[in-house]
């Protein structure tokens, strides 16, 4: 125990930043105890004294006499403190006033007790718990070429494959492994049997068990390439993306809620998960996979997938309940989450450790941290409408254009070929004398609304308002009428199915309230209008005879006016007004009608209406289509008599015919409807991360959270109150080789693009630059992640830490060889999967020999395979799959309902309501990047197999699936489905005995057999063999 404690202490001291210690390697236990005591004294007593009396002039605002107290190193450099002979320290002499200058300068002498404390502190070693001030610009950690020689940062050079002859070797991967095994004289295992292989490969690639028929086909496949073909088939399965997306979701700390206090949902965050599934299935090159997640909105903004990928940036937690004092630190915390996750996910580096001080182990100065953070300064979460299936939408647009053209052609053809005959035939029966001529519809010039309402015009002169009505509005209608004398005005208020309660009003109850009605008469040029006096208002129905009567619409009170509730809703109504003085003009008239709807009850405006005029006063208000204009009657009568009339008149008559009586009208309407409907374009609301888009709304908006600050500052000790300077976008110096500077990775935005700054696109360029940038490390890290998921342990055992304190690779050459191969073949991950899975190392058995344990107990040399427990998702999916209950629907919104039957990757990840069945099996909490899940074995897991309704339901489901078979057959089939093999003879016998006993126990139940079988299938699901893949 003792030496362990010491090691732990070293670690602690390193954490405290005391690397200035002169001879750490030789320090004794006593020294450490003294340093600890000194540090404690510093914290409790000395620090406040120095701060209050000394620091201002010595390392704070200024540094006088070259005596700098801001850190232990600078203090020791000054020579005022003598650790060899503490009592002789100059500092003690000046504060004791034994030597000039007496300190503190021009202030009271320190108390005796204070002086003693300082003396004691120096005698114990003058330890600091932390420097007073971190120097960010001066003595920062320098990144040198020596740092770049660390294995993870080295350039990715071509590696020679060891040339060995060995019958076990199948691929080049095996050659690397075989050489290392040979060094300890360890022979690898032979290939596993085919049943084991197909189960292993199917779970690894799809997270599901192979189906019995697939097992049989593979086992009996005579093709020597059968295994390779199996891998190819599995890589093409859509389930592949579902399996591997979930691995990446761990790394990306993906969740669909904000976390913290209220943990509000992010209902459109799931598109990031869907991006991952598609990206893996489509074998999106990994360099693009990386780039899109950081800058898809800049690099390929017309591509929905690239936009969806940016969900990565905004997947972290955010405290939506904030007070003003927390705003700025909350944004820096958010940037920290982004920087830390970016570093860990793509680079396997804990950049986040450099937020408050230079990284303790890795060559990452604090300045680098803030330079990386500055790339994200204006990047925020937004929700935008995206066409997720642009091909389908393109198809729809083309189809619509085709259909529209067809309808137009049809109408044109009718007009050219049939209209004339149709008109003549109709004209033959036309009786000019009988046409209704009392009310003539006005020809509307335009309708405007003060609230911007939009209208649709019908051929019968009716005007329909579209959409939801405004609270208040004034509608102005300009119209012409072809009659010489105008003596009365009719306003029809008409019902329509699109209106609330069928209208005629736009209020929620279908009512309206016409506050004022002004009719003005214009000269025909439309420049001068004169208001006309209206009188004798009457209507088909009015709500009352007082403030809601039709008379109140011309009473100069803008509130009171015609309304039609209490019997008039959903029906056509009409109001008639006589002109106090009729107007006359042989050339016709131009009118402007102003209708004011100011009622305090919201949206009491008119939804559908029509205006017409008559030449006599005293007409009864009736609803009815306006008659044929007189000019039309005259023209038709003349045509009927075969008289020659002028072209304009003739045109007017035909137009009237087309608008009212011709079949052409329906044909033209169909064209208009098609045009108006437009093509079916499906868009979805997607959570993205970008700049310059409206921010995603959340609770903190209530107090005015700004979402981002225009500049990111370098902070001292990570404290927003200690801003040092504006941070300029940049990268990690240790991953910039060949004399390159940040500007060399600059990606320019396209001409005219200024919504985003392209700093993230530039960063992605650096990240994927293998030669001079971070691409070498990016490739190593992803190769290791794949290896880890295929073998249970990475070549680097710490997948999220490729830094100094992480593990070193067991086979550095192999790692580099695979990384180089990945890069040289277009960053295609499926190729890498195939490369790994076709190796003899992957295909060998789990047999464990004594020499395995003796020479390589941790199996670092891969001389055997180690059985691996499935993750929670694969366990649940396998149970559903075997029971025949798995719903294979892909993509879309997830759910919190743990009895859902889709694959587990479609669970909604809500941070405060993580799915209990998943948590049992070490699901990540989605707060930070997780590179490798723990694999714990606990009693609550066992309880799930024993008692959970999901497992029980699946067991019953399997029983139902096998109900037509005999007991023996059902046992056999269940083994094939669940374990991919037939039962052995003893297994089969035990199972039969068990069924018999259970059936007796369930005896009184009509379903005894079904329940007994379910009891047995539950045991199958609980077997080690079911969840441990060999």
């Amino acid at each position: 125990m003792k030496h362990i404690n010491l090691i732990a202490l070293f670690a602690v001291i390193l954490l405290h930043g005391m690397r200035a210690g002169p001879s750490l390697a030789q320090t004794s236990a006593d020294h450490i105890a003294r340093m600890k005591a000194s540090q404690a004294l510093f914290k409790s007593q000395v620090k406040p004294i120095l701060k209050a009396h000394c620091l201002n002039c010595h390392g704070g605002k200024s540094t006088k006499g070259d005596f700098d107290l801001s850190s232990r190193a600078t203090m020791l450099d000054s020579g005022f403190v003598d650790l060899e002979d503490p009592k002789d320290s100059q500092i003690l002499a000046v504060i004791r006033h034994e030597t000039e200058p007496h300190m503190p300068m021009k202030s009271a002498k320190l108390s005796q007790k204070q002086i003693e404390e300082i003396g004691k502190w120096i005698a114990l070693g003058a330890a600091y718990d932390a420097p007073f001030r971190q120097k960010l610009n001066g003595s920062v950690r320098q990144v040198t070429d020596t740092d770049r020689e660390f294995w993870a940062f080295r350039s990715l050079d071509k590696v020679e494959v060891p040339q060995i002859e060995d019958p076990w070797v199948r691929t080049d991967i095996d050659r690397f492994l075989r050489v290392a095994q040979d060094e300890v004289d360890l022979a690898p295992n032979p290939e596993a049997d085919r049943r084991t292989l197909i189960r292993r490969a199917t779970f690894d690639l799809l997270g599901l068990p192979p189906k019995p028929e697939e097992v049989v086909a593979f086992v009996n496949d005579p093709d020597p390439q059968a295994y390779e073909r199996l891998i190819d088939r599995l890589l093409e399965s859509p389930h592949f993306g579902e399996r591997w997306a979930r691995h990446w979701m761990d790394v990306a700390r993906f969740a669909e809620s904000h976390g913290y206090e209220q943990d509000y949902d992010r209902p459109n965050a799931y598109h990031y998960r869907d991006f991952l599934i598609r990206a893996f299935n489509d074998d999106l090159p990994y360099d693009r996979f990386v780039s899109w997640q950081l800058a898809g909105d800049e690099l390929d903004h017309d591509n929905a997938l690239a936009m969806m990928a940016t969900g990565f940036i905004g997947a972290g937690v955010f405290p939506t309940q904030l007070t003003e004092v927390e705003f700025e630190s909350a944004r820096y915390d958010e940037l920290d989450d982004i920087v830390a996750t970016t570093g860990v996910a793509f680079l396997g580096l804990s950049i986040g450790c450099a937020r408050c001080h230079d990284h303790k182990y890795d060559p990452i100065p604090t300045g680098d941290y803030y330079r990386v953070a500055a790339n994200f300064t204006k990047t925020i979460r937004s929700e935008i409408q995206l066409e997720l299936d642009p091909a389908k939408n393109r198809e729809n647009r083309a189809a619509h254009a085709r259909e529209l053209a067809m309808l137009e052609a049809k109408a044109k053809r009718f007009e050219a070929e049939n209209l004339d005959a149709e008109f003549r035939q109709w004209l033959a029966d036309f009786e000019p004398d009988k046409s209704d001529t009392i009310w003539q519809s006005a020809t509307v010039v335009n309708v405007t609304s003060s609230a911007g309402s939009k209208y649709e015009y019908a051929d019968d002169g009716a005007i329909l308002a579209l959409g939801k009505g405004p609270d208040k509005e004034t509608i102005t209608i300009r119209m012409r009428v072809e009659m010489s004398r105008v003596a009365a005005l009719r306003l029809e208020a008409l019902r329509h199915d699109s209106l609330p309660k069928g209208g005629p009003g736009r209020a929620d109850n279908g009512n309206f309230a016409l506050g004022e009605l002004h009719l003005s008469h214009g000269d025909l040029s439309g420049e001068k209008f004169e208001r006309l006096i209206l009188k004798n208002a009457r209507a088909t129905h009015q709500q009352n005879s007082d403030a809601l009567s039709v008379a109140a619409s011309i009473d100069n009170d803008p509130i009171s006016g015609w309304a039609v509730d209490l019997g008039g809703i959903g029906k056509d109504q009409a109001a008639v007004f006589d002109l106090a003085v009729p107007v006359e003009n042989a050339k016709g008239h131009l009118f402007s009608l102003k209708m004011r709807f100011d009622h305090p009850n919201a949206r009491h405006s008119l939804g559908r209406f029509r205006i017409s005029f008559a030449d006599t006063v005293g007409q009864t208000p009736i609803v009815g289509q306006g008659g044929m204009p007189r000019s039309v009657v005259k023209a038709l009568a003349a045509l009927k008599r075969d008289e020659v009339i002028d072209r304009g008149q003739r045109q007017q008559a035909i137009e009237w015919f087309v608008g009212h009586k011709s079949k052409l009208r329906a044909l033209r309407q169909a064209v208009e409807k098609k045009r108006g409907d437009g093509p079916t374009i499906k868009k979805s609301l997607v959570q993205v991360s970008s700049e310059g888009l409206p921010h995603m709304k959340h609770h903190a908006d209530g107090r005015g959270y700004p979402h981002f600050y225009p500049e990111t500052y370098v902070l001292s000790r990570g404290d927003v109150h200690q801003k040092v300077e504006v941070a300029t976008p940049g990268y990690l110096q240790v991953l910039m080789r060949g004399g390159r500077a940040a500007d060399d990775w600059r990606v320019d935005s396209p001409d005219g693009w200024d919504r985003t700054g392209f700093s993230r696109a530039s960063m992605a360029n650096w990240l994927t630059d293998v030669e001079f940038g971070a691409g070498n490390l990016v490739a190593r890290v992803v190769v290791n992640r794949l290896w880890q998921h295929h073998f249970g342990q990475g070549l680097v055992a710490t997948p999220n830490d490729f830094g100094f304190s992480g593990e070193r690779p067991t086979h550095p050459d192999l790692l580099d060889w695979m990384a180089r191969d990945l890069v040289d073949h277009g960053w295609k991950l499926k190729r890498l999967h195939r490369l790994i899975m076709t190796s003899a190392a992957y295909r060998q058995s789990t047999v464990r020999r004594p020499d395995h344990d003796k020479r390589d107990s941790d199996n670092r040399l891969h001389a055997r395979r180690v059985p691996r427990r499935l993750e929670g998702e694969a366990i649940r999916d396998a149970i559903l799959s075997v029971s025949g209950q798995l719903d294979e629907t892909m993509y879309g919104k997830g759910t919190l309902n743990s009895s859902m039957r889709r694959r587990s990757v479609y669970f909604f990840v809500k941070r405060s309501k993580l799915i209990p069945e998943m948590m049992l099996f070490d699901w990540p909490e989605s707060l930070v990047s997780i590179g490798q899940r723990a694999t714990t074995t606990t009693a609550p897991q066992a309880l799930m197999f024993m008692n959970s309704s999901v497992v029980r339901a699946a067991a019953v489901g399997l029983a139902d699936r096998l109900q037509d078979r005999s007991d023996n057959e059902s046992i056999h089939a269940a083994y094939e489905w669940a374990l991919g093999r037939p039962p052995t003879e003893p297994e089969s016998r035990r199972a039969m005995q068990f069924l018999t006993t259970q059936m007796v126990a369930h005896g009184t139940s009509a379903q005894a057999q079904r329940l007994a079988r379910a009891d047995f299938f539950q045991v199958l699901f609980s077997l080690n063999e079911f969840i441990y893949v060999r």
Partner: protein
Amino acid sequence: MDEKTLDRRQWLRQSGCGFGTIGLAALLHSEGLLSADQLGDRALQPLAPQPTHFPARAKRVIWIFINGGPSHVDTWDYKPALSKWNEKSIREFDPDFTNTTGFFKNAVGNLMQSPFKFKPRGECGKMVSEIFPNLGEHVDKMAFIHSGFSESNNHSPALFMMNCGMARMGFPCVGSWVTYGLGSESDSLPAFVVMSDPKGRGLPKGHAANWSAGFLPGVFQGTHLKPTGSPIDNLERSSELSADGQRRQLDLLQALNRVHLEDNSESALLARIESFELAYRMQSAAPEAIALDDEPEHIQRLYGIGRPECDHVARQCLMARRLVERGVRFVQIYSGGMENQRSWDGHQDIAGNHRQFAGETDQPVAALLADLQQRGMLDETLVIWCGEFGRLPIAQKGAKPGRDHNPHCFSAWLAGGGAKGGVSYGESDEIGYKAAVDRTHINDLHATILHLLGLDHEQLTYKYNGRRFRLTDVAGQVIQPIVTSAATSIG
């Protein structure tokens, strides 16, 4: 791997499935293998008891979490000067005061004296608010801290700060660290149990993140006993199965599992076989542990069961005693639910609010202390009374004045488990606005809790993503003045 490790592994393998789980983990721990990125072989028995760093004073913890932020000046931090300052502006006291100190910047009132009377209690003569008539009996068991302060004036970050040592999400809470450090003494109950408000007033802000294991393996997260329905998931057998039927299932399962061990003797598989037996025991042990009917009537009465104002907390406190008695390591009981009138968050009517919540907890918590003592368990059980922050000495304006959040000062007490009785540590300023003397960071409080449990807060680390993390981050000092000297410890 050195020779010794190899030998140990071989021994484990040879000893077959009969090996003691405790031995395994303890052995691994003694080799210092537990601070690796993964749990190593401990993953197989993650909750097996672990040795302490030094002799422990306390073996277990019951934390009464005073949820919402109790007002220290109305409970344990008697401030007679507040009467003198009554109705004056706090800016006369501290010109730097800003309206954004609390949560509601538009309701800042004047300084307000406590609506409660205080009187000296116990031999130590501690001045105690009238709302704690029963707890006042026990002040000689309590070590008070009056100089606590937090880093946030907002519930959930402050709750995370108090529970996890960081005002941000994603870090393991004290209970998780403690169970990671010490394991469990029960092989049939969860190691870390959390009880929340059963009166439908909600979960504390931040919900389950308050008992989260953060980056520690999920097995160390708190088990939340659901206030309604079955308290633990999957504890009840399907109605389609009898106890015998399930036993036969397990017997078959174990028999079939063992067949495969013969050619594949991985320790993970052995551990899993054991986990089913443990689960089988849990099915009866857990309901038994929380069934209060077995308790004699006078004990039930002592806690206040049957009294409408405190019945719910009484049941939780008695349950907590039964759980720790059976080896549960860490119990946390949240008094109150969400914000405002649903918890101690007395923004309005501080008098009514605190009278109510004190009434809900006073008798049950006092009974817990008395009961633990009469059973000789108090010496080994650390009881903590603490919330996420304090409240301001000024009034929050409203029909009935309340008090707003105060991150600058709070009070807490520790009792039993090596905490000194009848002492007070640290002081707030004259009016209780800010912690003034011996200011106590939450890291210090955490360091002290771990210390009493025999854990050095600087040694209890977990390496994750390239960094060795601690509950106390890079700070924390044990508050020695409130810790009993080693001579009286239980060792």
